[in-house]
């Protein structure tokens, strides 16, 4: 079993697959329209100097979100660090 963690816990370079986007409302909608949905492969590119927000790559482009937003995203770690 691969452990399920949230996006906040991923380290730079790590890849994962989104399992669940646990938020609705405006935030959920925004994530969806940016293509962040269950089944999407993501990779963490890095974090801002104060460790927040986080930069990820998905669907061939780069997206940034705050850590408290990343908390809603459950992922399954896959691929190498």
């Amino acid at each position: 079993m691969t452990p399920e963690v949230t996006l906040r816990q991923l380290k730079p370079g790590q890849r994962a697959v989104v399992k669940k986007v646990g938020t609705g409302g405006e935030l959920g909608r925004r994530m969806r329209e940016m293509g962040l949905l269950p089944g999407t492969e993501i990779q963490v590119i890095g974090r801002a100097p104060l460790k927040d927000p986080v930069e990820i790559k998905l669907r061939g482009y780069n997206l940034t979100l705050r850590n408290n937003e990343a908390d809603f995203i459950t992922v399954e770690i896959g691929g190498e660090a």
Partner: protein
Amino acid sequence: MSRQYTIALAGNPNAGKTSVFNALTGARQHVGNYPGVTVEYKEGLAQHQGRTVQVVDLPGTYSLTAYSPEELVARNYLIGRRPDVVVDVVDASNLERNLYLAVQLMELGVPLVICLNMVDVAKTRGLKIDADKLSRLFGVPVVSTVARQNQGMSELLAAAVELAESKPEWHPLNISYGSDVDQGVAEVADILQGAQERHGLLSARWLAVKCLEGDQEVIERVRETPELAEKLLPVCGRVAGHIRSTMDDDPDSIIADYRYGYITGITRQVVSSEREVRMDLSDKLDQVLTHRLMGPIFLFAVLYGIYNFVFWASEVPVVWFEQFFGWLGGAVEGTLPPGVLRSLIVSGIIGGVGGVLGFAPLIAFMFFAIAIMEDSGYMARVAYIMDRVLRIFGLHGNSVMALMVGGGLSGGCAVPGVMATRTLKDPKARLATILTVPFMNCGAKLPVYSLLIAAFFAHRQAEMLFLLTLISWGLGLGAAKLLRVTLLRGEQAPFVMELPPYRAPTMKGLVIHTWERTWQYAKKAGTMILGVSVLMWAAMSFPGLPQEQDAAWQKRIDAAPSAEARLELKSNRAQDELAGTIAGRAGRSLTVLTDPLGFDWRANVALVGGFAAKEVIVSTLGVAYSLGEVDPEHSQSLSKRLAAEKGWNPLKAFALIIFVMVYAPCLATVVMIRKETGTWRWALFSVGYNTLIAYLLALAVFQGGRALGLG
């Protein structure tokens, strides 16, 4: 003449819409604002085989929901104006996400041409895209382009005109959202079918999908027909509830899943990746430019560099502008006889507008620097780096740029600062930023600081300026926080934001961006500010001295023994004149309020005048202290005079500095706040808010200082 076709350009932010627009229309374009919102639109004309086509550049959006002003503007334009053809500019290097909008456009049913832009970028990333196949699968024309090199533009225009010529109907695309949702949609659509005529040409299914997605705009419209709403909304609620309970998710997120599913099904067939690129150049740059240590250092260097560049580059043109307005004033002075008319034109109109327009070169270079940051993709990184800090104060990473431009490092200008808040999408954070910008130390406040620092803190000049920079940031951020916990309280809007790849900006793009914004600034200076400058001039000129007093002064001046004495007498007359004017009287009556701050009537007149433009403060103090004309850049004599004046001391000077730093933004800024917020309410609020804070602070400084025995 045959009817002119209208082509609307839609697309994701940064997909290249404006580049396509510029390539199609050349210089024939017009920038405007949608009423009520600060979303810009651009219209221009393109030529195709002797026929003129109107092209409209819509705001960039990721979606066609109704949750941001951009999306609403774009959607309402498409529905309300029904352009003949919609060209969706799609970034080929980022196809999946870009097609999300394309699919929504097809679901709406607009006659569509896909402009597959940035194929050059896709190529360097090893992506091969089969445009013909994409066209077949979607059933819409697809044209590959490289907009920044003008490649494919005539083909694109030809395809759009050809489609327009076929007088296409709207053909909504129906995609499946899974059996549960489909059933629900059908049920809602059935009810809507009856009321179809009310919705014009929109399909019942599209409206049904929007109702289930919880689209506030559409639901609002349904509510306008109470009988329909009565039938429809309970069904919507029931269907949505059913979907939620069986699928454990909101209808809108299921619909989005299926849309992306549909897109992935298509991109699998048309995109082939020659090699997998894990970290491209842009990612590697990010490793350095947003690095924990290097990132902030580089950011600071960039901002510092911008200041030096802007001041260095604008120094000469600003002098030209000043000389031009000086020459113009002189020319008028030479041709008109002395009197009210001459004074109105020279001091009121030329002086007022010239004072503001004189800054135009500086502002143009500031906009140029901002355009470089935006077009290169670095601006988004500034927000990324700074967000954590600014969030504490209820602001947003993107607020940094506005605050910097507004004078965060001393010497900016609040007008472009307020305009720079446009990159902020969170309305409350944006408003808080707009209201914070005037706290920064703009270039026009600096002469006042240097005057007072030279007079009272001469041994500590650099430290004082640095201290004032810190104070202005502290006060600005504090004021923002105060607003965010009171009037602008509320959840922070989502930050989720694209970090576009780094790109080399094109000169053409930079020039167009700079020109558009500078022109907006100049237009403001030319109209609103003209009116108020004249008012300020009148307040400081009328009523003049009574005849006999004036005659008495003239006699004394004529009888003066030396040129020196004559000059001094003239200055005294000017002071006397000023004291009697509306502004002078206002200054006197304001002493009731300003006595506790230590300001006398002369300081008050200067502050009232400073509302027109802060530069006026030094020159008015000059007149009030009967030194005649004082050039703000060379105010040593006034400094000496103030230092020697009884009643002035460092404490009073410091209270005045703080007051000038914080009180009402200048007129140009107020006008810009009105423009950017869409209402006078916030513009007037900022005048009141800042003046109140300034008053309380100056009071605390002066009285506190006195209590401590400093004054």
